[in-house]
């Protein structure tokens, strides 16, 4: 800690500044201010495109969605629920297998379908279908759903996310494109307007919903 214990300074001389006229000093400070201001203005001008670049992935509701074919509807036998996969239309060359998306297709009676996201409505884990008990079960926190996607038990607040679909020349098309979460529904493009979709019931999430009624 003692002074003489250090290597000598190359710049020994005391730093003294010339005493300038106060007016000159004031002017220097004003110029300094202008310099700072200029940097601020340029900084904002540069920052705007940067922010736009960062916010680039944010799109309007439904902007990522499009009609995607899951192939011929005959792959999905009446009365069964099967896993289907498709390539997400919005992808990049380096996405690899993550560009793929899976969904559950339920052929209700040969005419009507339901297409569910695999993502649990709780926190997005992939739900699995058990035909024997007609339940979707989630491996993460024990969420369960009935075959029509409605909530059966566990932490999810609602039923499975459901895609709009239409049949085009025997092919099953779904309105998809983004990972469904509570804020981004599976198909945000106003359902009901597609005629093929008219009769499809939307999942109602009333907790008291009739889970136990026998189908007639």
């Amino acid at each position, binding site marked *: 800690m003692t002074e003489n214990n250090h290597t000598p300074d190359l710049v020994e001389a005391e730093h003294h500044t010339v005493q300038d006229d106060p007016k000159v000093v004031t002017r220097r400070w004003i110029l300094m201010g202008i310099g700072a201001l200029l940097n601020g203005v340029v900084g904002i001008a540069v920052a705007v495109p940067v922010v736009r670049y960062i916010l680039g992935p944010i799109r309007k509701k439904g902007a990522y969605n499009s009609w995607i074919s899951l192939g011929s509807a005959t792959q999905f036998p009446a009365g069964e629920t099967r896993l289907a996969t498709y390539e997400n239309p*919005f992808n990049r060359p*380096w*996405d690899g297998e993550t560009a793929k998306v899976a969904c559950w297709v339920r052929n209700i009676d040969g005419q009507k379908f339901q297409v569910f996201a695999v993502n649990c409505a709780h926190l997005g884990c992939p739900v699995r279908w058990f035909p024997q008990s*007609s339940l979707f079960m989630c491996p993460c926190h*024990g969420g*369960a759903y009935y075959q029509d996607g409605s909530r059966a*038990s566990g932490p999810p607040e609602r039923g499975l996310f459901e895609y709009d679909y239409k049949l085009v020349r025997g092919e099953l098309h779904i309105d998809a494109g983004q990972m469904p*979460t509570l804020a981004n529904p599976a198909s945000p493009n106003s359902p009901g307007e597609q005629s093929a979709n008219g009769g499809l019931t939307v999942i109602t999430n009333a907790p008291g919903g009739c889970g136990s009624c026998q189908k007639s």
Partner: protein
Amino acid sequence: MPEELNDKPADKSLKGKALEAYNWVEQRVQLQAPFEEAMLHPVPKSTASWWYVFGSAAATLLMLQIVTGILLALVYVPSGAEAWKSLQILNHDLPLGWFLRAMHGWGSNFMVAVVLIHMAQVFMFGAYKFPRELTWVVGVIMLLMTLGMAFTGQVLRFDQDSYWGLGIGASITSRIPIIGAPAVQLMLGGPIIAGATLTRFFALHVFVIPGLLLALTGLHIWMVVKLGINEWPMPGRRVNKKTYIREYHELTHKDGLPFMPGALWKDAVFSAAILLAVAVCAAIFGPYGPTGQPDPTIIQTVPKPDFFFLWLYAVLSYLPPALETPFLLTVPAVGIAILLALPFWAGEGEKSWHRRPVAVMVLALVAVSWGTFTHLATFTPWSPVMNAWSGANVPEKMTHNLSPVERQGAVILQSKQCRNCHALGGEGGQRGPALDDVATRLTEDQLIRQVVQGGGNMPAYGKSLTPSEVTALVKFLDTMHPANQPAATDASRAAVAANTPAAVPAPAAQAEPAPAKAQ
């Protein structure tokens, strides 16, 4: 110590040359004086304690993470299509690549642990009080960054756990009111979890957070040096803003010692021990994953977060649905706000834990809850065991002496996935109660209602079982009671049975024809 050597005749020995070179550099950088000031400044003797080694150990681990991280970056490819494969090559093809991955993974675990212990120690010793409030605040931010590093690092592993972990992250983000939807897109870098998600987490993990963390570490240590190391708390020695600085100064000069080597040697020994522990864990347990490849169409997966987020996984399973969003959105914010406000709210007064019972209890409560939830998350009693129905048989002794209908019920119990949630003989899921003695708890009618209508955590099976299946199942369940304890019965049923000479067949079973089943 190098003296003023410049004017002396040139010393031709090796040592002389080295000194000359040292002086040449020092004359230009002039770092010796501030370095000595930092290292030799007096600290209270009581702080040369093994309790004070965790901060420096965390800094050492940060260095380890940076070095191993750079080495991994020589090979790792942050591309959705290639990341997983590049980890496989690191694990299997490159000599000692697995060891570097293991060091980085275990280093991360140790770093989170050491940072948390450091924080608990600082809290217990009242070190956040005047004048070290800002040191604490910066430390809290550093803790958050350390956790951020742990989470983003797990993403870079880009395996199944990482993929679905991102899905959980996105689902939590989507619950933010109003900006939930754009926030998810911002987080994922697009509409789905894919290559763009990986690259932004890569940028966070490799540039943004480490850069900030290093800068804050510098600031944190600078403040420790400038404000002095917190003295050992003594009951009754209260912190007072007016007198503290003077008292601390007296303490360091009357009962102090230079930081180096008096206290530093313990830091050095502990840091070395921690590094050794990381290396031993890495060598014995090996690297973390990667688990299966991040193929979203492979849904046979049970994703689980890394160790330090397991507690959250457990909490999310236990919260009632209605409380979940409020919990997720407010508790972390409130928790962080409390941590940040702590030194301003309790900046003076007692430091000793002998006089701060509430602080001790809070810490104990946090530690015990954290431990309990983490422990629960290691065996996830709330999750259905997805393959129990096909893997865990009904124990043989439970099917002895059964009637055909009851045996039929045992088969239904097995084939309808009941075992995924209900254990028999200790095997099967734990989401629902074990069924070994269910007949002692529920009467036949109650069993029927529970099966058909569900309730509690149980789905209703009315649609997926025919009435005769329900009857068989319930008949079987009704045999599930210990030999010395009869099945529960309904008193009114018993009365009816006593008055009816011939046994009536089970009511629900044959009443209506089996509905056409969808499956």
